[in-house]
């Protein structure tokens, strides 16, 4: 039997052709949506808390835990394994199946391709699951569409969401980039150079800080234009950040599935790279991949500080380089610092190390229950981590705002 005969063609996935009308005129866009795409983007939602009960079943086998899930409305019972209980807890109507699968891999270090569909079938059979197709923000906007401001926001988000320039055929490009020089970034020499640059950059930055007022004077009357240029230049380096993430994947012999540009959450312009394949390898690889992108900002920031330090005091070049250095270093810190309510590289490393892939969501939900007086009295390890995460993040965001206010007033004075 030949290999072709042994592996029959999988059945074709169904597609829907939808016409989405624009609000402004009679124009329209036609979108073809495959059922597979819809499935991974769907957000399964378990029934309301009062409609089910969950209890652990005592087991005589060490290390194995089972749970009984009961639908209190229909009296249907399901036996769940621990991984299935974990998945059940993720099905909150806000998390997509794709994100749930990622969380599963982070928690258990492997992926069972059948577990999610099988569990969903069981849950649907027991009427324990509903499905909501879109985000809560979009649902809230749709409900209040009659208000002109809300309608304008919705229109804006829709327009921005349409902008997605990406390619799924980038593996060859990243492999070539890696082969022709990219591999150097993952050597001990590169780590040493980065460390040296960081020290030199830090020293230059401290000296520049003392000359703050004189440096800002270098912008003259073009401060706004200069800051916009600094921001634009920084934005381009975000592409470099993502490319280095992609190179890290190649370094660990994984696949770069997609690279492109989009609007994050519908309004934050950003480049992105799909690094999900890294979840199939070691934790060390995941950590290196996460950190490597952020190091781009450390290196660029240090170089900018060195340029600023060696430029004439009060010149435009010095002001521009110092501002660029500052924004790059801030980006480095924000990317790696996990306690800021933003799910950046550092947050993913923390979640990975703690084995709590939905740390932020769980912590916020716990605080919400605490505020409403519904949190359980137990204050175990998980609750301690939640509390620490929220407290540190709140303090950090406050300090970050204070630092930027101080930066502006320091420059003004």
């Amino acid at each position, binding site marked *: 039997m030949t290999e072709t005969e042994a592996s029959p063609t999988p059945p074709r996935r169904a597609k829907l052709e*939808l016409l989405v009308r624009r609000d402004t005129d009679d124009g329209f866009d036609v979108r073809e949506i495959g059922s597979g795409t819809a499935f991974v983007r769907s957000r399964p939602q378990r029934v309301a808390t009062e409609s089910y009960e969950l209890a652990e079943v005592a087991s005589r086998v060490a290390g194995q835990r089972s749970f009984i899930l009961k639908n209190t409305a229909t009296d249907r019972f399901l036996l769940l394994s621990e991984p299935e209980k974990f998945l059940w807890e993720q099905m909150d109507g806000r998390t997509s199946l794709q994100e749930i699968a990622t969380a599963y891999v982070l928690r258990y270090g492997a992926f069972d391709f059948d577990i999610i569909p099988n569990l969903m079938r069981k849950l649907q059979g027991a009427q324990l699951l509903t499905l909501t197709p879109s985000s809560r923000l979009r649902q809230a906007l749709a409900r209040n569409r009659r208000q002109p401001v809300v309608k304008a926001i919705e229109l804006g988000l829709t327009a921005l969401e349409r902008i997605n320039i990406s390619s799924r055929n980038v593996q060859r490009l990243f492999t070539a980039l890696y082969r022709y020089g990219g591999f150097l970034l993952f050597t001990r020499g590169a780590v040493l150079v980065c460390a040296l640059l960081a020290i030199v950059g830090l020293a230059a930055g401290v000296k520049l800080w003392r000359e703050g007022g004189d440096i800002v004077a270098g912008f003259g009357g073009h401060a706004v234009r200069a800051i916009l240029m600094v921001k634009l230049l920084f934005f381009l380096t975000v592409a470099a950040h993502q490319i280095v993430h992609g190179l890290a994947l190649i370094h660990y012999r994984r696949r770069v599935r997609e690279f492109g540009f989009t609007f994050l959450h519908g309004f934050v312009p950003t480049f992105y790279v799909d690094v999900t394949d890294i979840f199939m390898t070691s934790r060390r690889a995941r950590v290196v991949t996460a950190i490597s992108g952020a190091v781009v900002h450390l290196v660029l920031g240090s170089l900018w500080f060195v340029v600023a330090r060696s430029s004439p005091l009060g010149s435009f070049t010095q002001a521009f380089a110092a501002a660029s250095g500052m924004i790059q270093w801030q980006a480095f810190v924000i990317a790696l610092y996990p306690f800021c309510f933003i799910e950046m590289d550092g947050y993913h490393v923390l979640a990975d190390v703690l084995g709590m892939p939905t740390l932020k969501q769980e912590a916020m939900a716990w605080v919400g229950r605490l505020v409403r007086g519904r949190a359980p009295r137990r204050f175990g390890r998980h609750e301690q981590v939640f509390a620490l995460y929220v407290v540190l993040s709140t303090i950090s965001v406050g300090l970050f705002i204070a630092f930027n206010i101080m930066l502006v007033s320091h420059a003004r004075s």
Partner: protein
Amino acid sequence: MSSSTETLAFLREVRLFKDIAEPELMVLGRSMEERPLKRGQIICREGDPGEEMFVVRRGSIVISKLVTGRVEQVLARIGPGDFFGEMSLFDRSPRSATVQADSEATLLALDREGLRRVTEQSPRAAAAFFHALVLIFIERLRASGDLVAEVTRWGLEATGLDVDAR
């Protein structure tokens, strides 16, 4: 009125009129009005009253049905030689779908009076016309069945719903 030689040559190629003899086809051609359309122009909206059927002479037309809000399901894309709008012509009911030009297009419109004139003048032409119409209706009915099956399959696949589950 569109009675040019080009129109006649075009009508001869249209499946709906393929068995109509040339003299009757000329009468038909004279009864049809040419409608140029810009890209994106809406010919009729779902729910509008309808008095005419249209044959696409040039360009591409998209037929869609409202699903929710600004989202419509594309039922069909049709091109030169295809026709639409015949249901309202016969049963006087509101338009069942929205029809819009997907590119610059030209339509030939046939109203109830024009159709009556042709069928009265030549019962043989009328028989040929209605026979072709029935055959095309059967094809469309089969296609609708396929579309319903495809949409159902899409729903099952997109939700992971297992209908065998008890």
